[in-house]
């Protein structure tokens, strides 16, 4: 995949297909330790040891439409190509946690890309899911929690056209703030010059 956020979307889709009603996404860009970590924890139906063992085998899938399940295999390959790992922990009836790590400055490490686009796409797959996002980068932390949105929206669904547009704009703004490195007030720039 061109962006790591596309792998993230793929894992989120798996979580939703497993019947998750809550998904917790964590992203950590740790420049000091030169690590980029992404994880998705869900409360879906989980996998037994046999299934877990076959996860990542491209010829194993629970789907019936075709014989190939590539998502996890692709993500593992992407992580290992960057001196990283893919770890999957799961318990039947409790849920699953997928964690991918990458050497942050590895030349083959794809950009993280459009995380807001991924989050919105996941919400359109199941607008009733509770989704939390915690993204650490640049010495800051971004938090997003659909429960906070629902507290204001009441029974208006997250995929209502005006709501989905608001979510897209809100997340885009959160990410601009997360990565923004410009000085806070233009007027003060002058005081920095000798």
């Amino acid at each position, binding site marked *: *995949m061109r962006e790591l956020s*596309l792998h993230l*979307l*793929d894992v989120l*889709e798996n979580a939703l*297909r497993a019947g998750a009603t809550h998904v917790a996404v964590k992203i950590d860009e740790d420049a000091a330790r030169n690590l980029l970590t992404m994880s998705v924890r869900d409360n879906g139906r989980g996998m037994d040891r046999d299934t877990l063992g076959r996860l990542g085998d491209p010829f194993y899938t629970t*789907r019936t*439409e*075709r014989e190939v*399940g*590539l*998502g996890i295999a*692709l993500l593992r390959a992407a992580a290992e190509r960057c001196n990283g790992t893919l770890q999957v922990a799961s318990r039947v009836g409790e849920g699953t946690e997928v964690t991918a790590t990458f050497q942050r400055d590895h030349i083959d490490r794809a950009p993280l890309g*459009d995380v807001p*686009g*991924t989050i*919105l*796409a996941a919400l*359109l*797959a199941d607008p009733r899911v509770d989704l939390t996002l915690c993204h650490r980068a640049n010495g800051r932390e971004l938090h997003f929690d659909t429960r*906070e*949105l629902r507290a*204001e*929206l*009441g029974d*208006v669904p997250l*995929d*209502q*056209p*005006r*709501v*989905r*547009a*608001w979510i*897209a*704009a*809100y997340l885009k*703004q959160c990410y601009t703030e997360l990565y923004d490195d410009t000085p806070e007030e233009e007027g003060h720039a002058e005081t920095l010059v000798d």
Partner: protein
Amino acid sequence: MPKLSSISDLRRLREQVQSDLSSRLETGTTITVGMGTCGIAAGARETLQAIMRELGEREIEAHVKTVGCIGMCAKEPLVDIEQAGQPRVTYGNVTADRVARLLDEHLVKGNLVQEWVVARLDSH
């Protein structure tokens, strides 16, 4: 400084939506985008964004949802358009750059884009 979004906007949005009669009526149009691994790899997330952008710009109300892989991976991104009383039409290879024409032809002008159709399911 551009106006900042905040969660309290949602309270106002909720009031707008609840008082807006046209929103109360179930929109008859549903657009479904395939979002399995194959779809994602083929650019379906970008297709989804283009669809929402076009709907917004043309002020067309439509329900937008995603589904997993249906097995026609070589034709991803797949987009279904279903309008009340019309057959459900599945379009293939709908990359983001094709969305404007697709929505204009199908939703605005009421014509199928035949060369992109991969399936049609007549309504009962």
